[in-house]
């Protein structure tokens, strides 16, 4: 009973944030002279209206879950990793390398290797911001975003030079071998990528990591109080670095899933924006891995449906970006409520104490 109550109160703020974002979106739609109800119904039709739409919504959720988890794990250690996009691109590149250039392996070996490569490449890309943070105390936001620009350039350069496809209309790498492609489940009009299962498993693993393991305890301890952690033999540097590497790895996995499952091929100029979407997804879920699954689905609905909204009603899908910003701002402002709650808690605490003292 208590648990339900707790969950409800935890859900309250995110729901208010979402509602407010929709209201804000309505204003934008009105400003274009369109009808918000019409636009939103087109949006939801685009996301749920047909088996194909549902498939697309679920498939789009895969990379979003991974980037959401990526931001979550870093945020547990109080680093804001907004370089997910670069780590994702680098992870996609790693997965493509293994997917394209390793040949003749059975799928059971090839696919895991390609996915692993995504994790490793993404993780490596987060090592530099991690080192800058622990050695020089450079703000992670600044260093990770710089690494984004570098990642785009480096990967683009590599695709344009050493890893360019033999013949292709666009600049791109070769097709990933079929043994490294993530299979789809097909049933009627549904066509769902197995990656969604990987994503859910990843969320569960992360949940267990954070709640049940020594590493999770240490990461959260460092996130809660770096000094106390260091004084008690929990290295804040080590844990910040580890959490950033896991974070980068998860973003890399998002890229791997997208290439190995969705597109099958890494094009020049690939940056799908999932890395940035991970930020509101994680913040809205308050870093809770299971919550990330839900918020990622929500964003997937918005992103998928927005395309239909644009084509059928003529409202630009970029309003979703603005709505995301609004959600984040709301979450940030929400602090005022938690602080108010804390103040109330403090007061009750003092009163309790006085009572206890009085009873002595």
């Amino acid at each position, binding site marked *: 009973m208590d648990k339900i109550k707790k969950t409800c109160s935890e859900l309250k703020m995110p729901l208010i944030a979402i509602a407010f974002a929709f209201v804000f979106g309505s204003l934008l739609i009105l400003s274009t002279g369109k009808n918000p109800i019409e636009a939103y119904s087109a949006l939801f039709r685009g996301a749920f209206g047909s088996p194909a739409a549902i498939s697309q919504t679920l498939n789009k959720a895969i990379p979003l879950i991974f980037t959401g988890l990526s931001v979550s794990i870093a945020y547990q250690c109080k680093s804001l990793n907004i370089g997910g996009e670069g780590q994702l691109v680098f992870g996609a590149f790693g997965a493509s390398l293994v997917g394209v250039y390793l040949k003749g392996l059975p799928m059971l070996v090839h696919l895991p290797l390609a996915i692993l490569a995504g994790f490793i490449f993404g993780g490596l890309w987060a090592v530099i911001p991690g080192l800058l943070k622990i050695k020089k105390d450079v703000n992670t936001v600044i260093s990770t975003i710089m690494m984004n620009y570098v990642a785009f350039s480096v990967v683009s350069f590599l695709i344009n030079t050493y890893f360019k496809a033999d013949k292709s209309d666009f600049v791109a790498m070769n097709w990933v071998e079929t043994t490294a492609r993530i299979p789809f489940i097909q049933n009627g009009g549904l066509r769902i990528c197995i990656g969604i299962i990987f994503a859910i498993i990843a969320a569960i693993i992360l949940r267990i990591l954070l709640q049940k393991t*020594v590493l999770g*305890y240490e990461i959260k301890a460092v996130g809660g109080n770096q000094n*106390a952690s260091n*004084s*008690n*033999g*929990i290295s804040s540097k080590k844990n910040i670095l580890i959490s950033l590497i896991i974070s980068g790895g998860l973003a890399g996995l998002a890229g791997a899933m997208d290439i190995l499952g969705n597109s099958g091929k890494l094009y020049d100029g690939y940056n799908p924006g999932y890395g940035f979407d991970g930020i509101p997804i994680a913040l809205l879920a308050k870093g809770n891995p299971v919550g990330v699954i839900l918020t990622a689905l929500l964003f997937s609905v918005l992103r998928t449906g927005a395309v239909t909204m644009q084509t059928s009603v003529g409202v630009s899908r970029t309003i979703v970006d603005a709505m995301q910003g609004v959600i984040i701002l709301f979450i940030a402002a929400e602090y005022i409520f938690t602080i108010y709650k804390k103040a109330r*808690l403090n007061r009750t605490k*003092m*009163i309790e104490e006085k009572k206890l003292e009085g009873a002595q």
Partner: protein
Amino acid sequence: MTYAIEAINVCKYFGNLKANDDITIHVEKGTVHAICGENGAGKSTLMNVLYGLYLPTAGHIRINEEDVSLKNPKDAIERGIGMVHQHFMLIQNLTIAENIVLGQETGTKLFLDRKKAIKEVEELCEKYNLHVDPKARVDEITVGMQQRVEILKALYRGVDLLILDEPTAVLAPQEIEELFENIRLLVSKGKTVIIITHKLNEVLEISNRISVLRLGKLIGTVNTNEVDESKLTQMMVGRDVVLGGRERKETIKKDEVLKIENLSLTKGHHKALDEINIDVKSGEIVGIAGIDGNGQSELIEIVSGLLKHYTGEVEVNGENIKRKNVRKVRADGLGYIPEDRHRDGLVLDYSVAENMILGQHYHEPFAKNYFLKFNAINDFAEQNIKDFDIRTMSKDSLASTLSGGNQQKIILARETCNKPKFILASQPTRGLDVGAIEFVHNTLVEARNNEQGILLVSFELDEILALCDRLYVFHMGKVVGELKKEEFDVEEIGKMMLGLREAKANG
């Protein structure tokens, strides 16, 4: 008789908590009025009301027999009230002159006249016989001098009434004497002083009248020459208190739990620690006396294993710690009670139980194969909550919801319950009320009786004198004296703390 300031039926409630409950105090002009009470009695709240930082829930303030309403410190400053906070309100990287004129700057809006500021500060120094160098930066001067700057800051604003919040907490005995002389000088020039403190001997020495608070209520106001220390204690606490722990047993003192040889540490351009030699044996409490900032915190960081770039030898429980990390040092028999429990002791967003295993969370019985063992953790927490009488709703309450005393008990439980051979305690009673202080002292003395060795760092000389079997005095990163219990002498130790004298023979 005229009154400088009066609190009439002042109440300050935080929700249901009555921090100040119907307090009426009249402070006579040209006197020193002391406000006494233990931590949590409501002294600071009352002062914050007088200084305009809090609005009273009910009641009102009169200044010079005139009703006033103080909405913010600016109102209070305008009416000639000044306050010297316990934690000095100075900007470290500005000069003394800049700190003093801040908020009422010399010159025009578009030009800060630093020369004029310096001149005005020099004149003030002359007038009140408080000497400082206006051009020096605050982070270059001693604590005693910082306090002088604080007083000058108030005088620059033309105070008639000066509130001093625990002004002696960080001073050496001689500096306290000097402060008292300054207070007397101020009073002779017609100023009124309110001094907040819990040190009774000082209250009796400096004040004309004393008001005692307890649990938010005014117990009474008395003339100083009509009371003594035990009467005041009775008023403050409601019972007799024995600090310094219960009985002390004879101990064997056979093991050397801490041995420091020629320890030096360079920080920037100066030596934070300079050729330190210290040893602690099992079954004794050894104190480090000294004014804040004379190398104590560096010593603690080194002994606890955090700081490594020192020279010299540090052995804990007979083993050199240079190559050990914090975790290893602790695992090999060190309990560490940090000076700032919020900064170094607890993760406030973690539950009581989670805090109880901080630092021990990685080994059995609390963890196995990288996974936490919640049954063992919970049992351990329940047991400690019972043994240490920790007042909490449950083991799952967040540490942030506990009172300071109970938070300190979490740390005490964690660091002492498995009987480490050596306990490093830094200011273990800072900010606690008398009941909790008693508990901490008893725990430490029990550990001593149990043949554990304890190094106690404290800026409260009284605490060190009461608890320790032996003490070292620190000054400017050097050990300037080592005294046994029978040689303890406040006057002597005070001189050493100020660097005025070295002990004749070391040991």
